[in-house]
Every structure is written in structure tokens, then in C-alpha cells.
């Protein structure tokens, strides 16, 4: 009796879930980076950055 199908299914599901998790984190990373870039090009500054700008 062979159990290869169960072993392959376990590794297959694990790879699929982990790829989805990594993919989701990478997509989120891209979304946030683009949003920050867009705000910075519009000239929006965070309060802490604005304070440093005024001080200098």
C-alpha cells in the first residue's frame, strides 16, 4: 500500500498556502509603497517630518 498521494497532497497544500501568504504580503508591500510615494509627490509630509523641516 502506498501513501504517496497523502505525502504529495500535504506538501502541495503547504506550498500553495505559503505562496499565497508570501504573495499577499508582497502585494500589500507594493500597495503601501505606491501610496506613500504618491502622497510624498503631492507634497504631504508627516507631522514629525514637518517639524524637522521647520526646525532646520
Amino acid at each position: 500500500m502506498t501513501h504517496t498521494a497523502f505525502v504529495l497532497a500535504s506538501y502541495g497544500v503547504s506550498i500553495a498556502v505559503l505562496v499565497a501568504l508570501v504573495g499577499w504580503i508582497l502585494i500589500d508591500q507594493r500597495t503601501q509603497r505606491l501610496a506613500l510615494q504618491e502622497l510624498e509627490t503631492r507634497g504631504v509630509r508627516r507631522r514629525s517630518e514637518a517639524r524637522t523641516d521647520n526646525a532646520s
Partner: protein
Amino acid sequence: MTEAVSKAGRWIDLANPTRFINFAGIVLPWLVGITLLVLAAGLWMSFQAPDDYQQGSTVKIMFIHVPFAWLSMMCYTVMSISAIGTLVWRHPLADVSAKAAAPIGAAFTALALITGSLWGKPMWGTWWVWDARLTSVFVLFLMYLGIIALTRAMDDAAKSSKATAILTLVGFINIPIIKFSVDWWNTLHQPASVIRMGGPTIHPSLLWPLLVMAVGFTLLFFTLHIMAMRNEIWRRRVVAMRRIAARSAERRGV
């Protein structure tokens, strides 16, 4: 003494979100590389390992199932430590850490349940039994889902952080229950065979691949956690900057 103070100072520096982002930028490329190397070595060792005399080839499922199960508990422990950070020091980075870890922990717990089920069918003759170990891990999975829902239920992160921290700490009671469930109750799930008094009961030919895979997946957890934390810090910055932009647009309108 001075060294201890400066060391503590360095950790506090890291808890500054901007410093954390710089730290993540430096550490992540190395961490990704080491994780991939260790996981590749672990996979190679797993496929080279002999079949178990009782489990046959299904022992290969153990090389991923056991690390997933360990990590499901370690991730919750990380979240509980973060919850203490939120409640005691009210540090925003602690809440960022807890929120970022929850989906990763949920994924590892789901994988522990799925791979366990796929091992149970050929070895036990059943996909699932409601024994103490399986049920307590299923409860852990539900707790992760509850925490994920709570962290994303409110627009303002500061409002949900305290409630999430309390829920996380209350749920921590489940971790020792999971660990000792196999000793306290008569379970179909086997008792501990690696982390136990008197040393592991597994033959080195199967123990080494398991340990290397466990190290690899632990590194993967920390890599993903740091990445998700950085994303969360950026997300909060975007929200804060959009508010500033909206306010200044409003002022200009007046």
C-alpha cells in the same frame, strides 16, 4: 552596567518605527537568503530520510506538520508578548507586531491541521477526531481568526489595539493546554516525542531533517513577520498622511 544600559537603549531605539524600517531594510535580504538555504537543505534532507518502519512514507508529512504545529504556538506566544507591550508600555510597535503576526499564525495553524488530517487518514483511518489535542489546536485557529477580525474591525488602530491585546492574553491559556493536552487527557494524538524529559525518542535519521525544517520554517516566520510589520507601519503612515492632506485641503477650502 553601562553596557547593559546601552544595550537596552539600542533595543528601545529599534522600537522606534523609523528605526525599525531601517533595520528591516538591512536585515531582510539576509534573512530571506538564509531562510531559503535552510529550507532547501531541510527539504533535501527530508526526501533523503528513510521511511519509518511503521508510518512508511507518511513520516515525510511529519517534517512539515510538526514545524507548523510548533510555529502555530510560537506565533501566538510572540503575539502575547506583544500584547503585554501594548498594555504595559502602550508602544505602537507592539500592536503592529501583534496585528502583523496574526494572519501568519493562522496560516501555520491551518497548515498544521490540514497536514495532520492528511497524515491521520492513512495512519489512524480517520481525517479527524475531537480529541483534546486536535480540538485545542482548532480552538487556536478560531482564536487567530477572531483576533484578525478584531484588529481590522475599527478604522482607528489605537482603538482596537487594547481590546486585541486583552483577547490575545486571555487566549494564551490555550497554549499550555495544547502542549500538555496529550498528557492530561487520553488522546488519539501521540504524546511529545522531541521536546520531552529524557530526550527525543526519534531516530537521528528522522530527527535531523525535522529539526532543520523547524529552523527553516522559524526563519520563514520571522522573515514574514518583519515584512508584515513594515507593511503595517507604512499603512499607518499612509492613513496619517491622508488625514493631514484632508485637513490642509479643508483649511484651504475655508
